[in-house]
């Protein structure tokens, strides 16, 4: 215990002097800035402008009545053309003739998909019918699941930042640490001390765990305040940090220095990153990506931060995670023993 405490103090001092802690602080500050300065949703201008040239502009009136956006409904042709001019992606809809016999013209400035076109035609149809005063049936909408809180844009990325940053920090920084010790050959002095294998591994894991927890708490508190399911969030952060640090330590043990490590290490980091792509574009989630541990992690973090009434997801992730962690510990112990502390 005394041995471990001494090692942890040493590794913390080194993490500070190597600038690792500073790097983490800067990243945390960036994340907080993102959370604070990013709007909750991005307001985009309307995608369509409607010019109603039917005398009396009945369609315009009808659309306004049902809550339409006035800025999308120019009064004059000059106004209409100016709007289209300044929004090259917008679609213009001109309605002329009379309510009974309308002439509709769609001005698409870019290629518009067929479905969008059909939807547009249907909406115009709907607007005309509203303007004629026809009764429209309200469709029944039934929600299949409990409705989740709408995720504000500035917080949507937090599960990713948390999962990704904590993982990358553990994996990358522990490698930097190990190669520093190899380069300075202090690892040789450790080998002829009674230090041994486990204090060496545990000390590194503890140091990056402390850094990760601090990072996680700061970023989450900045975005969500303190009314968060801390137990789930911290359990997931702890797991992510331990897994990536311990795996990273075992992985780094096989390389001579940072430049030998670089491309294989980068490959691991990219692999670790792919689940986040799936998270952002759920359409792309091939089976093998779902196996990467960070896949379950990022969804479990989302569940912990934006609960949808599916807490088993967190528990299941932690249980599978425990198995991954056990494997990482075995891999790490064997690698460190064989490659760093030969014979320890």
């Amino acid at each position: 215990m005394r041995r471990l405490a001494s090692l942890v103090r040493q590794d913390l001092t080194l993490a500070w002097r190597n600038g690792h802690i500073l790097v983490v602080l800067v990243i945390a500050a960036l994340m907080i800035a993102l959370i604070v300065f990013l709007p909750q949703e991005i307001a985009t201008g309307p995608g369509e402008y409607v010019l109603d040239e039917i005398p009396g502009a009945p369609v315009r009136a009808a659309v306004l009545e049902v809550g339409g956006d006035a800025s999308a409904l120019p009064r004059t042709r000059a106004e209409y053309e100016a709007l289209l001019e300044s929004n090259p992606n917008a679609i213009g809809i001109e309605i002329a003739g009379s309510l009974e016999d309308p002439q509709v013209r769609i001005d698409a400035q870019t290629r518009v998909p067929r479905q969008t076109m059909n939807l547009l035609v249907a909406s115009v149809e709907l607007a005309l019918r509203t303007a004629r005063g026809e009764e429209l049936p309200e469709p029944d909408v039934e929600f299949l699941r409990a409705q989740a809180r709408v995720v504000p844009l500035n917080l949507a990325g937090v599960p990713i930042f948390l999962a990704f940053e904590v993982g990358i920090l553990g994996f990358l920084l522990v490698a930097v640490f190990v190669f520093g010790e190899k380069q300075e050959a202090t690892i040789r002095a450790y080998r002829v001390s009674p230090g041994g294998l486990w204090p060496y591994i545990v000390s590194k894991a503890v140091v990056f765990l402390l850094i990760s927890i601090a990072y996680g708490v700061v970023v989450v508190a900045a975005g969500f305040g303190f009314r968060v399911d801390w137990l789930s969030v911290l359990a997931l952060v702890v797991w992510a940090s331990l897994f990536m640090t311990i795996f990273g330590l075992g992985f780094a043990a096989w390389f001579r220095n940072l430049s030998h490590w670089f491309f294989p290490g980068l490959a691991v980091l990219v692999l670790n990153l792919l689940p986040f792509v799936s998270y952002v574009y759920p359409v792309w989630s091939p089976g093998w990506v779902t196996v990467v541990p960070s896949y379950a992690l990022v969804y479990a973090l989302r569940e912990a931060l934006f609960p949808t009434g599916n807490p088993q997801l967190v528990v299941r992730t932690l249980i599978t995670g425990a198995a991954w962690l056990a494997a990482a510990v075995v891999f790490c112990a064997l690698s460190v023993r064989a490659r760093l502390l030969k014979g320890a």
Partner: protein
Amino acid sequence: MIEVRELTHDYEGKGNPSVNEVGFTIEDGTIFGFLGPSGAGKSTTQALMTGLLAIQQGSVTYDGLPLQEQGRRFYNRVGLSFEHPNVFGKLTGLENLRYHAGLYSVPTEDPRRLLEMVGLTDAAHRRASAYSKGMKQRLVFARSLINRPSILFLDEPTSGLDPATAERVKEIIRAKRAEGCTVFLTTHNMQTADELCDVVAFLNDGRIVAMDAPRELKLQYGERSVAVEHRTNGSVRKEVLFPEKSEDAARLKALIDSGAVETIHSREATLEQIFIRLTGRGLA
């Protein structure tokens, strides 16, 4: 007691061992000097004896128990200084010692006292990366003493130190011996070896070519030596001879008679002269 038997180590496995059937015994509380020119295999032998290198052939035993069976606790009583100073550059001298001390489960020395002993008190709070080579070396030497070892391995502890500091280090080594510590001292400085060691072994090309107390070696070869430069087959060769040995006296006479001698210098016999006599090469 440390016993090394038929130790052989071949880094590349190409049948060209760096350490070749080396064997010796070190009595407790003595200083054993391991001498030889650069590349002779001194550091390799030390690495084998301390477990930094896995033993390929031969055996190393401490008090009858092979190194491989000693376990990690063995290192509680071993101190080791490295030929290339290896300290944490980002830690201060004091921190380097303090954190290293934390690894041991036996009483350790006060780091400040050790720094004072090696003259690093003023630099105690400076980062080791800002130390000169000699300062780093003293720090590594101090670190090797932190656990009050009963076996001390020192690889070139005085190389690169100024004479006064080297003298201080030698004093500390003598003091350790007085406490009963066994010292394995690697050096290519014959002077240091002569002053400190109870027994010296000459290592050349991975083999021990002579081993005895410095006094005995000198008695064996006589008190005076002559260095002879002579021209043979167009090139100048240098030989060291000990005229008190009859075969050397005969060789000297033959050289003089041949008329090829260019210079003759007579000097007091030193370990260095004996080494050259044995191997035909210097220690530089």
